[in-house]
């Protein structure tokens, strides 16, 4: 059973208060500190996750907007088709799965692409997988905002054109 921090704290505080009452004036703060430290440690479960058993309950999370929207959209006056169909016409598609990225998943894997940095040899005869410094002079200018602003004139701020679809 997971003990709450409060349940663990009370007996320890009681012990500390008793020790203080018996004349050990230095014992009280030490016991309180130890108790607090123990709580801090014990509050983390063995699996490393935070023990929130004694925490404040989570605030109410509003229902997903989609669900609310669907509920609001359901027509109250839905009627069945005239051809003898009697099933509730407003019923949602219970058979339809939630939209997922299943299309992409179902399709064949594309050709593998080179995504990892290419190994380079820097001349010392050893394979070097770290990013070598760029030797290009282009970088000096193309990382210098002030220079580029000065070099390149302003363009008309028109909305970009669109394609066909």
């Amino acid at each position: 059973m997971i003990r709450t921090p409060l349940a663990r704290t009370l007996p320890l505080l009681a012990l500390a208060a008793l020790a203080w009452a018996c004349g050990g004036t230095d014992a009280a703060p030490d016991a309180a500190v130890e108790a607090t430290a123990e709580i801090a440690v014990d509050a983390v479960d063995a699996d490393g996750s935070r023990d929130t058993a004694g925490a404040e309950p989570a605030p109410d999370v509003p229902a997903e907007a989609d669900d609310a929207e669907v509920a609001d959209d359901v027509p109250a006056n839905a009627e069945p088709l005239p051809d003898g169909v009697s099933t509730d016409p407003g019923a949602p598609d219970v058979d339809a799965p939630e939209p997922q990225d299943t299309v992409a998943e179902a399709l064949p894997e594309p050709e593998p692409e080179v995504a990892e940095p290419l190994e380079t040899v820097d001349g010392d005869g050893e394979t070097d997988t770290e990013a070598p410094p760029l030797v290009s002079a282009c970088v000096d200018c193309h990382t210098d905002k002030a220079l580029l602003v000065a070099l390149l004139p302003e363009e008309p701020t028109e909305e970009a054109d669109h394609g066909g679809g």
Partner: protein
Amino acid sequence: MPPVEAWEKVLIKLGNKTNPGELDPHLATLACEECHGGDATALDDHEAAHVGLIDDPSAPETNACKGCHAAVTATYWQSMHATLQGEQNAIAVRAGFASLAECPKALRDGFKGECTKCHATCGDCHVSRPNANGKGFIKSHVFNEKPSQAYQCLACHGARIGYDYLGSEDEGRPPDVHFSKGMSCLSCHGEVQAHQAAGDAVDRYHVPNTPRCEHCHAVSTANPWHQQHWNDLSCHVCHSQSAYQNCSGCHTGGVYTTDEVYQAENPFQAFRLGKNPFPDRRFEVVPLRHAPTVPDTYAPWGAGPLAAFDALPTWKYTTPHNVRRWTPRTQVPTSAHCASACHLGEPGGGPQNADLYLWRDYVDAGWPVESGANESVVIDGALPASWQAPSSPSNP
């Protein structure tokens, strides 16, 4: 989409990094000039350094990505994104030829000069805003595996698709339900579809691996409407919102954007329901959108009238990206019959919903030059007699 200043388009923002190579492995292994050309030795001469500059190394002329990504580039340059094969086919068929290559030079040159500017290069989707959209880094010079929906997908597909998919609170247009649920373009249109060769597909609907609703939504045995109409109406017939961005919503000779009366009478231009032009799809009735193409559309290219203009409809198959569960066709007024939103008449009632369909008279009145082209898709005679044909369909 807000434009980007010229300097911002080429600025590599290092942030807390000290070297571009720390931003992206490409920049760690390739010097700038290896892809972009220019003269890297011209250290103090801006103009000389940019002689021979290759603005977009991933363009087909240089195809710089091929060196490491041979497989994907091999198929990509045959994809619909790269070839605009659907557009090529439409031009050729209407001109009376089997392919664009056989078309007169004026059409070929016009296509190459105007249409192909929208070719999507690798960089258009993985590095910068598309060339056709003014360019500009998305995230410094980082190569993004997944394109940015806002600045790359919708940079080209924002006029209609994005307009519908994202919706507009100001205009009272709810977004597509898939967007509401957090799905992006890539949720349905994945990397396989984007990179694969289009084969002999004549339009984008016939490219392999094109997403279909039923890939995620199986036929429902509990929904009587689905059971009734699964094989005769496309999903979009019922689940597309009426507020739909048609080409004609903007491309109407400027009238739409200047004439408030016209706007009021033609809200979003919408779509019309007509006969399915694709025999390989099971539906009988589908939404159709009007593409403002006329016989002399390519006259500005120096081309003559399209000899076979009637070979393809100008009211085209469409799959509006404004899907909702509840639309004017799936909701009916209180105490009204369930078919009252779609059928032409209800028991004891008069003709209604005529404006939902594409009638021959409607096309003849609004676009007489396109009457022959749309004869195969007008709904006349295709609806069950029990639905009651309207006596006088509305005019545009």
